[in-house]
């Protein structure tokens, strides 16, 4: 399936999130994303999550300690768990269209042949060392293929936002916080019934 230039499997039938631009791509195959990725990392959110599927959880758990490596304790499991929950909430908060786009990035990294082509790693993320994950991210960043750069950008951005949305991490930026808001109780807005 992956002969020579791995870009052959990244054919798409119309321009979309992970479609390559004309200037960057080699010959595109006739296989569509849907055909490549159907059945992979499929399914519902895992218990305790609103959006993240089993494959997503494995992926994001691996990514978090790498993206937040600069911290003194990147493997602090509480921080990883909290960031994972924050990530799940973030996905639940954006539109289904946005989630569709982002899931393409997750699925690409969860599907072994694609993962291998993108990062050089065949085995799943649960067996990856911290070094393995960081090396994979670097490879995505440094690739000449836009699809790889797009996946790097999405993973780093989402983990970073998830991390810094948590109140316990905001202060680490030197941001003292917002004013306190006090709301006086009022009667609920009376709504006129819409006339039939």
């Amino acid at each position, binding site marked *: 399936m992956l002969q020579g230039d791995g870009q052959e499997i990244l054919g798409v039938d119309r*321009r*979309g*999130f992970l*479609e390559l*631009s004309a200037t960057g791509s080699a010959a595109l195959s006739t296989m569509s994303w849907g055909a490549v990725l159907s059945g992979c990392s499929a399914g519902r959110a895992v218990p305790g999550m609103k959006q993240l599927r089993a494959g997503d959880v494995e992926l994001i758990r691996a990514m978090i300690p*790498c*993206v*937040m*490596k*600069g*911290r003194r304790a990147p493997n602090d499991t509480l921080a990883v768990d909290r960031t994972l929950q924050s990530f799940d*909430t973030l996905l639940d*908060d*954006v*539109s*289904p*269209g*946005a*989630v569709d*786009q*982002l899931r393409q990035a997750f699925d690409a990294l969860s599907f072994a042949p694609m993962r291998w082509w993108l990062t050089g790693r065949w085995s799943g993320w649960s067996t990856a060392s911290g070094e393995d994950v*960081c090396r994979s991210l670097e490879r995505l*960043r440094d690739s000449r293929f*836009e699809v790889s*750069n*797009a996946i*790097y*950008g999405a993973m*780093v*951005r989402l983990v*970073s*936002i998830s*991390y*810094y*949305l948590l109140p316990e*991490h*905001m202060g*680490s*930026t*030197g*941001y*003292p*916080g*917002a*004013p*306190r*808001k*006090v*709301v*006086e109780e*009022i*009667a609920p*807005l*009376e*709504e*006129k*019934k*819409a*006339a*039939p």
Partner: protein
Amino acid sequence: MIDLSKITLGSRTDPYRNAAERGWDIVDASNLAGSVKLAADVVIVGTGAGGGTAAETLSKAGLGVIMLEAGPLKTSRYFDMDERAAYRDLYQEGSGRATKDGAIFVLQGCAVGGSTTVNWASSFRTPEQTLKFWEKEMGVRGCSPDELAPYFASMEKRLNIAKWAQPPNPNNDILRRAAERLGYSWNVIPRNVRGCINIGYCGLGCPVDAKQSMLVTTIPGALDHDAKLIHRAQVERVLLDGDRVIGVEALALDERARKPTGRKIIVRADRTILAGGAIHSPGILLRSEVPDPHERIGRRTFLHPVATSMAAFEERINPFYGAPQSIYSDHFQWQSVSGPAGFKLEVPPVHPAFAGGFFSPNSPEQLFEGMSNLAHLQWMIALLRDGFDERSRGGVVGLDKRNRAVLDYPLDDYLLEGMRRAYGVMLEMQFAVGAKKARPLHSRAPFYHSWKEAKAALAELDVKAHLAAVASAHVMGGCAMGEDETRSVVNSRGKFHHLDNLYVMDGSLFPTSIGANPQLSIYGLVLKLSTQLLS
């Protein structure tokens, strides 16, 4: 050290707190028990800059107005300056909106008041160069600077627009000092605020109702004149009867304003005004399958694509505090009207999650070190003026597999060249006033420690989509106005070319980008168009 977390704000300025006493007719569509059918003189889709202005103008003239807003009604008692809640509840797609290939992040409002509820209060009249270009090159009539002047003046008065009189915050002051140092022109930004306390949370909803958004000005004005507001109501299509439009069909959404509940809202009206903003107004027309013989709907959608540079200073900058935008430079904006992309220089407000999202780190170490130092980071933005040159044709709005509007706007060589040039300008400015290190928001960019180093590195930097962080806070066009129907969607009075009783009155009217933050352009133009509608 300034620490705003020590101050407390109340909620007594919220004009909606006594909505019932004021007799305001407000319906939350998520509470509807069944579908409803309504009738009005005018139905207005969207309550942003265009919708609010039109609603107030028409309801004050005695017309029966119904406003439909897909977003929720969130008022200042709700605005607790929390990033997660604001991005989730006040922005299009929960802040997840992006162009089709994911390369440009699009910030637009989705709530009563539209983008005016979450914008940064910068108010500029449409540049004369832009108006003249529309007249000369884009077949627009009646929009000369002289013809629009009284409408701008009226909205400036209505929204208390005036040059910001307080000292700029450090983030803005760096821009001012750098412009002075290098001999670039600069000026103070006019803002639509009244009683602003200079804390800088405009983008998360003004907690003290100082920002004169549509939420606290024209929408209350319309409600005071018996307009009806239905929120969490997403218009799917306009309704046709032969070659006239007779109203709209909307879906009631749930409490989160995301999923349809199954209830419908049908509004029959003599006149239908689309003010859903660029992206949604073309989207509604596409879903309605209205006549489009020259395939103009959705085309020429522009973004003022933003390139960003960050710089670390010895002194505290606190980019998260203070009126977000108070200084601008147009030095590089109008060197030629068409030609290589011009750009406007400003600064953004930067709170932690926003910073984390746009940082585009070269490495995890750089991310954490930079974010730990956020209080010392100055951020500068260049907004590219797209749509004036032949090579800059903008993006196209289409419908995705869920039948939702999506903007396809590729980052082409014309824009990438403009971004590279803008990076150079901004980095030179930041180093000229003492930056210790600086970098463009680009995944392959380390921090540079001098302008000399930055300049050399920029020449080698691969400036392209997905590596450079690119955003847009100004979506314009897609329902261009003009007299030539082969190049426009509506005429110079905002009337849809191919059907009667259908108008567009929002930022999707613009035939090119504006070349300035667009809210006042929308206010002035829509005041004119809605006033004309009365005659």
